C-alpha cells in the first residue's frame, strides 16, 4: 500500500550530460513506499540514462537524491544491495537450473548459505515450482520464467524494484498475470519503478511520469493526467505529451 509519508526515491535537479548533449535535463520527483511508479517516455527521451543513475550504474553530472534512504552520490554500493532489477531482455541464466539461478543471485547479493537455502525453499513454494527446481531455465514457459525472474529480483528483500520493460513482446495473458504479481508486491510495501511501452499498463500505475527531451513533462496519477490532457486513456495522454518531442 502506498505510504506517501515515506519516500523511497527522492530526486532533485538531476542532470546528466554526455559531451554537449544533455540526456537528462534537470528532473525532480519523489516515489513513495509501496507505490507503483510508471516511468514513461519516447525512445531517446532519457529514461534509461535516468534509471541507470537511480540504480547507481552511472553518476549524474549534477543534482542530488536518495534511493532507499541512501545518497546516490556517495552511497552507491550500499544502494545496490537494497534495490532489485529486472528486464525482459536480461534476467536469468538460461543454462542454469532454477535452483542454481536462485543460488547465484542470492550469492551476488551477499546472502549467507543458510539464507539462500531458506529463500530457495520459500520461493519455490510460493511459485509452486518445488517439482521443477532442477529444470533448466531455457526449457521453462515464458510465464514461469517471468515469475521466477521477478522473485529473483527480490531475493534480497529490496525496498524498491526497477522493472525495465518487463513485459515487452509477452503474450496478452502472461503480460496481465505479471501485472498481478507487481500489484501483489506493491501491496506488501515494495516500491515498484517500471518502464513500459504498453499504454494500458500505464493505467495500472499509482502515478506516472512522462519524459520528453530529457525533462519530466508530466507527472501525476493516470486519472489526473487524463483530466489535465483531456484524454480518454493514457495512450491519448502520451500522444499529446510525447508528440511534442523535438530531439530524436
Amino acid at each position, binding site marked *: 500500500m502506498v505510504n506517501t509519508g515515506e519516500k523511497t526515491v527522492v530526486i532533485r535537479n538531476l542532470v546528466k550530460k554526455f559531451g554537449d548533449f544533455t540526456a537528462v535535463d534537470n528532473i525532480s520527483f519523489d516515489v513513495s513506499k509501496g507505490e507503483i511508479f510508471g516511468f514513461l*517516455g*519516447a*525512445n*531517446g*527521451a532519457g529514461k534509461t540514462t535516468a534509471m541507470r543513475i537511480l540504480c547507481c550504474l552511472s553518476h549524474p553530472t549534477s543534482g542530488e537524491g536518495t534511493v532507499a534512504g541512501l545518497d546516490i552520490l556517495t552511497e552507491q554500493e550500499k544502494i545496490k544491495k537494497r534495490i532489485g532489477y529486472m528486464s525482459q531482455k536480461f534476467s536469468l541464466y538460461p543454462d542454469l537450473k532454477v535452483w542454481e539461478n536462485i543460488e547465484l543471485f542470492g550469492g551476488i547479493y551477499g546472502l549467507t548459505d543458510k539464507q539462500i537455502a531458506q529463500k530457495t525453499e520459500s520461493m519455490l513454494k510460493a511459485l509452486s515450482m518445488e517439482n521443477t527446481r532442477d529444470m533448466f531455465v531455457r526449457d521453462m514457459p*515464458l510465464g514461469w520464467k517471468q515469475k521466477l525472474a521477478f522473485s529473483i529480483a527480490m531475493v534480497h528483500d529490496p525496498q524498491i524494484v526497477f522493472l525495465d*520493460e518487463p513485459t*515487452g*513482446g*509477452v*503474450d*496478452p*495473458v*502472461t503480460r*496481465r498475470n505479471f*501485472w*498481478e504479481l507487481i*500489484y501483489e508486491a506493491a501491496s506488501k510495501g515494495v516500491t515498484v519503478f517500471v518502464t513500459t*511501452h504498453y*499504454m*494500458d*499498463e*500505464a*493505467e*495500472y500505475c499509482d502515478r506516472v511520469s512522462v519524459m520528453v527531451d530529457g525533462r519530466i513533462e508530466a507527472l501525476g496519477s*493516470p*486519472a489526473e493526467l487524463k483530466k489535465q490532457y483531456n484524454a480518454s*486513456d*493514457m*495512450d491519448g495522454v*502520451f*500522444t499529446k505529451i*510525447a*508528440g511534442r*518531442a523535438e530531439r*530524436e
Partner: protein
Amino acid sequence: MLDSTAIKIEGICKAYKDTLALQDINLSIRQGEIFGLIGPDGAGKTSLFRILTTLTLADKGRASVNGRDVVEDMADIRRTIGYMPGHFALYQDLSVEENLNFYATVFGTTVEANYATIKDIYCQIEKFKDRRARDLSGGMKQKLALCCALVHKPEVLFLDEPTTGVDAVSRREFWAMLARIKESGVTIMVSTPYMDEARLCDRIGLILGGRIIDKGTPEEIISRYPDRLYAVRDENMFRILAALRPVEGVLRCSSFGCECHLALAEGGPSGEEILSVLSAAGIEGCSIEKIRPGIEDCFIRLS
C-alpha cells in the same frame, strides 16, 4: 495481377530439436495488402519470415512468393523481395549514404534509379547522410533499414517486428509510412507483438505456439467472438479481478487499462447481476457496459 495471391503458405512445419516452431501453417496473402502476423515472442513469427525470405528451409510444406517457390526459385525471390529483420542488420561502420549505396549495388541498381520509392522516408534522414549507422538514434536506424529494404523496389516487403520496443508515438509514425508504401503497390507482410496494430492491417493472422489460431480481416475475427463482453470500471482494478474470477458464468476476466473486460457465458449472469455481486463483496460505485471486443480480447479467448 489485381486480387491475386502474393504469398502462398501451405502446410509449413518447422522444428528445432524438440521444439515445434511452426505447426501446419496455411496462409494466403493478397497482392498489395498489408498482412499482419500478430503474436508474442516465441510464437514462430521469425521462423516463418525466415522460410519465406529463403533464409531457412521448412521441414514440411510449401510456400511461394509471387508464384516463385521458396526452394526452387530461391535466387529469384531474393532479388524481388525486401526484408527487414527484427535486429538492426546494417553495417554500423558505414555511413547512412554508404549503406544505402551498398544495398543498391548488391541488387544491381542505384539509389537514383529508385529514388521515388524511398524519397518519402529518406528525406527524413538525409541530413544525417554522412553519419555512421552506429551513431544514429533508434528511430533513424529504423528509417535507414527501411530505405535499404526498399532501395531495389521490391515487389514484396517483409518486416519482422519493426515496432518492437518502439514508443507509442513512433509506432504510429511508422505505420503511417507503411500505409504510404502500400499505396505504391508493394505487398507488405509485417509481424508484431502489439495487438493494437491489428486494425492498421488489411488482414491478419494470430499466431501462438507455432499455430495460426485465427485469420481474416480484423473485423471478421472480431465478429466471430462468441461471448458477451462487458467493460467494468472501478478505481481499483485488482480487487474487481479477484472478486469476479470465481463467479459462475464468468469465462474470463482481464485487465484492459482502466477497464476490466469481462466475458460472460450465454445464459450466465447479466450486467446488473455482476454489479450486485460486486456490491455484495463490498465494492460499490463501479460502472458496467456492454462492449464490442477488440483483437486482444479475441487473442486472449483463443490462447
